[in-house]
């Protein structure tokens, strides 16, 4: 039996028909065609699938779709507003904080979540907050720089 689950995705109300027990990553990528969220391990080890649920960074491969009913989800696709890159995206581009780009969505979403919780992160706090996100291409130092740049810009705007 299929049931309908409703939530907000990148600002838009959405309903999906599911059997229940599906992982959120599958629903986002397969049912809702938002493929910016990546699968890297499916068991919470890598962070490539990170999204925001009610502003908290969460691994979408570890969440059942039922658990997001009524909540607000933001994925990488929801960061661009009116055609403008979000300051974190801009900073990732400016610092070239990516190579193959496969970890990038998860990195940006996790950083976004961290900055929403605390806009004045120190370098050490960034490192510990990001430590569970893996990048095999080795862009870590540039990602830290990018997050610091983005934090400054976001704080100036506020």
């Amino acid at each position, binding site marked *: 039996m299929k049931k309908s689950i409703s939530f907000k995705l990148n600002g838009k109300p959405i309903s999906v028909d599911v059997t229940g027990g599906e992982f959120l990553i599958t629903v986002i990528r397969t049912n809702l065609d938002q*493929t*910016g969220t990546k699968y890297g391990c499916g068991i919470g080890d*890598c962070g490539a699938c990170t999204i925001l649920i009610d502003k908290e960074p969460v691994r979408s491969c570890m969440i059942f779709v039922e658990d997001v009913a009524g909540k607000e989800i933001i994925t*990488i696709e929801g960061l661009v507003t009116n055609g403008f890159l979000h300051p974190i995206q801009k900073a990732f581009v400016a610092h070239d904080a990516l*190579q*193959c780009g*496969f970890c990038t969505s998860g990195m940006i979403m996790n950083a976004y979540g961290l900055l929403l919780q605390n806009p004045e992160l120190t370098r050490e706090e960034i490192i510990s907050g990001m*430590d569970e996100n*893996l990048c*095999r291409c080795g862009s870590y130092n540039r990602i830290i720089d990018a997050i610091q740049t983005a934090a400054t810009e976001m704080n100036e705007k506020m």
Partner: protein
Amino acid sequence: MESDKITQLYFSDVNMPITYDRRKFLKKLGFGIIIVFSIGKLSLLQGWGQNDNEEIADFNAFLRVKEDGRVDCYTGKVEMGQGIITSLAQAIAEELEVPISSVDMIMGDTDLCPYDAGTWGSLTTRFTDPVLRAAAAEAREILIDLAAEQLGVPDTMLEVVDGVVFVKNELSKKITYAELTKGKKIVQSLKKKPEIKKSKDFEIVGKPIISIDAEAKVTGKAKYSADIKLPNMVYATMVRPNVYGSKKILVDSSGLSVFEGAELLEEGDLVAVVHADPEIANKAAKKVKVTWEEPAAKADNETIFQYLDDHIQESKVFEEGGSLDKGRASSMKIFEANYYDGYKAHAPIETHSATCYFKEGVLIMWVSSQTPFGTREELSKALDMPLEKVHIKQIFIGGGFGGKVYNQQAVEAAKIAKLCGKPVQLVWSRSEEFMYDRFRPAALIKTASGVDNNGKLTLWEFDIYCAGTRGTKLFYNIPNNRTRMFNKDDIHPLGTGAWRAPGNNTTTFARESHIDATAHAVGIDALEFRLNNLKNENMIATLKLAAETFGWDSEKAKGHGYGIALGEDAGTSVAIIAEVYVDKNTGEVEPIRVVCAQDMGQVVNLHGAKLQAEGGITMGLGYALYEEIVFDGGMVKSRRFNSYEITRFSKTPKIECVFIDKMDSKPQGGGEPAIICVGGAIANAVFDACGARVNRMPITPNRILEVLKKG
């Protein structure tokens, strides 16, 4: 235009032995000025020039100035994070005098791009770039000749700015590339070495530039193989054995009946379940019970080195000089040691994936392959289809490092699509990725060194088991030496293959550890000992640059140590100096700082070169300190990231990369060299910090404590 300067091949009078598929290929192209060229043996050796007709039939890349003045570059190379989509476009823009935004890179599409052997070995910048540049320069010459005709002035009077040809000092007289190309179709093979710009005239090359694909990647728009969704597509999950190399005996699929719409597919040892919902395919596959015949276990991660030593007798001499007996006799001291390295996974964040369908007998596939043409060939063989009936499409690759040269998943996906008659997507799970990766082989290296009274190396014996000889040609001046390679087919209990700078990581670790141990034993500073024994000028200069940048003589904090390693790869000399802190109680190593100096000839994209080197060093810290596949026979036990640690944010040191500036020489490889020195530099720094000489990678806290305990 003089005919010997430019060979124009209009399609109507092609009398060259262009092979069927090349000719067809050229026909498909629309109007424009097209320069075809080959990145073949000739260019491999010389970097330039396509001299005979055969080469024309064999071109494997081309660029085209289109009727709208934009430039398309077609190459079978793929972008997987090494930045060539930017550096190649940059080189073309430079030579053709167009803005980089006017260059479109079409990469790795087997129908649109000419054949290419694959993207590996840091070959792209080294060999593709100069040829591409020559081709772009030649296209510019044609355009200028055409402009000279049309404007009625000699071509020496012309100059190009942003795709517009001007008459010098008379800027109103001009014509655009678009106007020049309109309605024309000129196809020409790259004939001879055209005038390449000198460094003083460079406007774009050598300047840092931001990757042109970055924006697609930060917005989630960049498409990878698993992001393609086809109408009526089903998702496949493989049913796998626990042990590598198992053969299928019996399949019990009775558990499938509860999953409506799940379909079981079998061919040979392949067992898979497909469903329109990937989660159902996953759950259903778990209910399929297969009886497997498992191969006998040869060794585990501890016994493997003895196993290799016992089972490989045959060797080949790779390099030899003087006499070992003489060397031994003239040495004041002789040191012998063995070095070990375990199996390493490539572990890209994107697992092997493929999406495909059949259309009118043609297999069309998006696949995470480093070698689209190789994959096409593999598919054509596996499915018994003609090559031209397999089409691999352009797609981003989520990291390769050598692991995506092999594409078992492509064959699996294609077979499944054929069996079920529907479009199929197959994405390996992380656990499958760890099992079916082609690991960097475990290796053993036996060394002996000898030194005379003046601190000069007099003897070098280097027996390499399973790591190959890449980069092992001696750059130290050692009169009596022998390097041998020991190897045997099918010796490994797991799949093995190329890993970012194959073998060279292992052999460089062994050589540089041993050089360090030798220097220490005769009481000479590691830097001084190397400078005193190096023969290669490039290497000496590179090492000096690294030592200066690092501050080799600077005072060390308590518990900290410095370590040097030198290496050569893909034509590039590398010197790395690392600083680590070692906690003597826990054996925990904290990488503090890494300085990497490289002589890589001309640096085409300084920024890209830095990115690549930083990435290589960061990845390299993983193999040096954490990475090792734990296994028992064909049973891989490291199946996820929490049991196969790779470098993380908190373990990444400050990294500084410096380059020896050689703007007028040929560019060398940049994607791999830096990584080879990480193991040796870390091993030597750990020794310097705490006195533990660990001869086996990864250099784990336990191994450090063990050595310390022995004293």
